[in-house]
């Protein structure tokens, strides 16, 4: 059983690392596309067409992909000043409740995305000619799926009476 959990945790680690690299790339893409936009417009007097949208799309991807990677390293902002109020046992039960609830919410969002997928794939958005699904819903879908996997990992750790590994490096 323990071996299975360790293997599953390794898979989650690989997914999280992949997401972190993707988030890293989106930041680079934002800087390069906006940098090119300013340079081409003011230095070469040659305005570029798609840079705005490319940067905005990268921002949407960065938000959701980064949020999933951040979940893996327990990096989301929480109010933890009251955590000392509870005993270790209660804290563990609360942590399991939190993980299960978040997984439930994310599953609901995943179902909603699949329900609207066919419509959203037909709606093209902006000048890039990409569908609204690819621009907005796909990163959210990937984020939700990955976070559910990380939820399961956390629940397995908590059920085994282990602490969830915290402060994992972002890359």
């Amino acid at each position: 059983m323990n071996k299975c959990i360790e293997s599953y945790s390794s898979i989650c680690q690989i997914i999280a690392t992949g997401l972190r690299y993707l988030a890293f790339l989106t930041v680079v893409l934002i800087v390069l596309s906006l940098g090119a936009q300013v340079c081409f417009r003011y230095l070469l007097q040659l305005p570029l067409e798609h840079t705005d949208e490319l940067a905005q799309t990268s921002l949407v991807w960065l938000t959701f992909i980064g949020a999933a990677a951040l979940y893996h390293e327990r990096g989301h902002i929480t109010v933890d000043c009251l955590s000392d109020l509870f005993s270790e046992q209660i804290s563990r039960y609360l942590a399991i409740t939190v993980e299960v609830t978040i997984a439930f919410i994310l599953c609901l969002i995943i179902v909603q995305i699949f329900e609207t997928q066919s419509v959203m794939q037909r709606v093209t958005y902006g000048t890039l000619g990409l569908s609204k699904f690819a621009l907005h819903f796909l990163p959210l879908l990937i984020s939700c799926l990955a976070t559910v996997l990380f939820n399961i990992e956390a629940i397995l750790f908590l059920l085994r009476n282990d602490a969830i590994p915290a402060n994992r490096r972002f890359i």
Partner: protein
Amino acid sequence: MDLLWLCVLFITLLVMRFPIAYAMILTSLVSLWADELPILNLSQKIASGVDSFPLLAIPLFILAGNLMNTLGVTERIFGLANVLVRHISGGLGHVNVLASLIFAGMSGSSIADAGGLGAVEIKAMNEAGYPPAFSAAVTAASATIGPVVPPSIAMVIYAFIAQESVAALFLAGLIPGLLMAALLMTIIMFLCRSGSTAPSMPRATMTETRHAIRRAVWPLLAPIILVGGILFGIFTPTEAGVVVVFYVLLIGSTDARFTATDLACAIRDTARTTSATLFIIAISMIFGWIVVVKDVPDLILTFVSGFADSQTTVMLFIIVTMLAIGMFLEGIPAQLITVPTFLVLAAQYNIDPIHLGVVVVLTIMIGSLTPPVGLVLYTVMATTNIRMITLVKALWPFYLVLLTATLLVALIPSIALWLPTLVLNN
């Protein structure tokens, strides 16, 4: 569903250690179910929540701050501030404030100031013999100048919520930022009058001054390029972010210590901070929608109309509310939850939304220093290993100073509005 129960649910989820973003989703979901509203809105509103051009400024200003810290630009700024004001009574305390003011002109984040420049400032002050709690308190207080002076991430977020001009907000923050710095330097001088808190420092020699100016002249040009570029319409506030990033890269790459790893570290931290910030913004879209559906702004307006008869009373109400919320919530969610309601109040009482924005950002900055939830407070504690209670005790005079600055800006609108009116109307 009753509004009160939603508030209770949200607070309970926070106490249970739900991440703020997920506490917002769950509260929204319960509200949608209870009121039998279409749940499909959840994914649609979240998915398109951050698709906005002005929000692109956030990763860029965060990256600029991170690059300044990793590429040694921060040390150059500190070096210049050191030779300019270290001999005044209060010595390195003034250096700390001045360095933060210059840093604020290039980065829009108080966390980048407290965590990066702050570490340099605290180390220098402790080595010079300042009490560690005093060094930490000055650093924490001066870091709050960052989001008030342009560029500012908090202002970008306010502009996004209020649909106001980012350039006007940036200009409106300039004089209040200078006022904060002046008041902080005054209180430092007052606190250090005895000389026991602040060891006296010798005046810098001409050679030292020349060397520091030569090293800092390029970083000093950044705020001028930034504000000038926005004012003369050369680039938008969002594009200004990318200009600063390339400018800092250019300055930093001349440093012998520059490595590709430093650059990768800065980008990695930017990805991390940006996604944490923007994810909350994306989620708040659904939360904000529910606040409107529940008529919260109208309820608050009715409540305030019961006792407020002037702009002053409304401003005081807004400040008190923001300070109370700021104690328990981080700045961005606090802004996202409250600003839509405050805008309704502002419209009713003829308060300029740009003026409101500056006051909101100022109170958020005080909130970032107050326990139990204060990100600047936590960042300085992590840098110094000082206990919260010790730091909060040392911060008391600075709370009063920052509150005074906020009240002055709130009660005298021209402090914030004079510059944008002068520049943008011409």
